[in-house]
């Protein structure tokens, strides 16, 4: 228990975190690349084609992981925001700031791959389906955080303002999701049911799980790299950083 608290305290120190994240990224990079390669090969080439959709369903191996991690990313951001507001740890500000653009990009990837998948499956690039609409709103929420941060000149205040916004967003996300769900079921689509809940076969599921794991790692790694870039900028004149960069 004491070891854990010591570890958490160390996380708040920029010099220690800079070194630790450097080691972490060095380990994460090969694992992420390996998982992405295995998942992509397995999903795109080995897994059997779908009975109805043929090969076009394979975009699921990008679409679903991106969507899952995009949603989780908002919660990562919110937890970092809460830590920043409650304990005033600067590193939490850096983490929140680093997570926002990665989450926004993943949401955009989920939306675009969804549109590409929608064309052969539903015959339209865009359909106002409950899940798509929720993801679109999530994209707006992410962009709001990024834009608010950029709008403040004082970056300490910017981080705090973003923390408040993400917390407000976190309280609202379940309400938004539920309300969009109800909205969709209220306007029952006349023609076909888009999301037929059929159980996915194991031969298709396992590569999907690998890809989801790979995307989580990709998110973590992008976030860490963003944080390191931010630390480099913030401490560009600090003694410890100059020392470290001269050594390595």
């Amino acid at each position: 228990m004491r070891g854990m608290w010591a570890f958490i305290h160390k996380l708040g120190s920029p010099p220690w975190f800079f070194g630790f994240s450097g080691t972490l990224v060095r380990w994460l990079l090969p694992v992420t690349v390996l998982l992405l390669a295995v998942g992509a090969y397995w999903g795109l080439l080995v897994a059997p084609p779908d009975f109805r959709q043929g090969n076009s369903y394979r975009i699921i191996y990008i679409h679903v992981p991106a969507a899952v991690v995009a949603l989780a990313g908002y919660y990562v951001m919110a937890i970092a925001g809460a830590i920043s507001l409650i304990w005033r740890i600067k590193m939490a500000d850096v983490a929140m700031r680093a997570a926002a653009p990665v989450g926004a990009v993943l949401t955009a990837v989920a939306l675009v791959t969804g549109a590409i998948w929608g064309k052969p499956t539903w015959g339209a690039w865009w359909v106002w389906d409950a899940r798509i609409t929720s993801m679109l709103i999530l994209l707006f929420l992410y962009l709001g955080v990024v834009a608010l941060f950029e709008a403040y000149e004082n970056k300490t205040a910017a981080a705090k303002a973003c923390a408040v916004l993400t917390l407000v967003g976190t309280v609202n996300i379940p309400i938004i999701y539920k309300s969009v769900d109800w909205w969709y079921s209220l306007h029952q689509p006349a023609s076909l049911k888009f999301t037929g809940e059929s159980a996915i076969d194991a031969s298709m599921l396992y590569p999907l799980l690998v890809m989801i794991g790979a995307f989580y790692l990709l998110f973590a790694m992008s976030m860490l790299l963003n944080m390191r870039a931010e630390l480099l900028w913030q401490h560009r004149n600090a003694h410890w950083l100059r020392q470290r960069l001269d050594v390595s």
Partner: protein
Amino acid sequence: MPSVDRPSLSLLAAFGRQFRRHGQALMASLTDVANPLLFFFMVVTLFPLGLGPDPLQLASMAPGILWVVALLASLMVSARMFASDFEDGSLEQMALASHPLSVLALGEVAAHWLATGCLLAVVSPVFAMMLGLPSQGLGVLVLSLLLGTLCLTLIGAVGSALTVSIRRGGLLLSLLIIPLNVPVLIFGTAAVTEAVMGRDPSTWLTLMGALAAGMLALAPLAVGAALRISLDS
């Protein structure tokens, strides 16, 4: 023993003074009260011009149109909610006061809602009839707008408090609060549509009421925190 610095006003009295002060400021410049109504009126006029005058089509779209326009009108006015207080320094006085900033801000938000959202809800049947909304939907429209504009004003207050120190924060404000307003729009439109169809709208109205109650409890905390951040920046 040093005496504890006690506020000379009770919390409720402080809330009331803020409410009155902000209300008087709004009444003094009637444009702040009249502009959202005019905006509502004009945008409602745009829809028949854009969609065509077919009464049946307009009537079927009226709940959605009225609610979207109400949302936009509320968005437009929330940008200025704390602006004058920020510019003339009264916000700093509020932050220094011994009462919680969230309660003082809530007093202003209440006055703001009464002068904009509540007023808009009361006059909305006029615009609804211009769009040919069937009369059985009118009562629910007013009720849903009363509850809904309260939610919109509270969310707007959070957004306004976050952006008050930013120059030209108007567009940013809409980016921040439009996604948060989605449930309000859905519940409001659904309630009016159900009433027009002759079905029971109470599910949607109670959901809206729950939303308003939750926001009334939580939004002031966020507003207080955001105003302090804006003052520090």
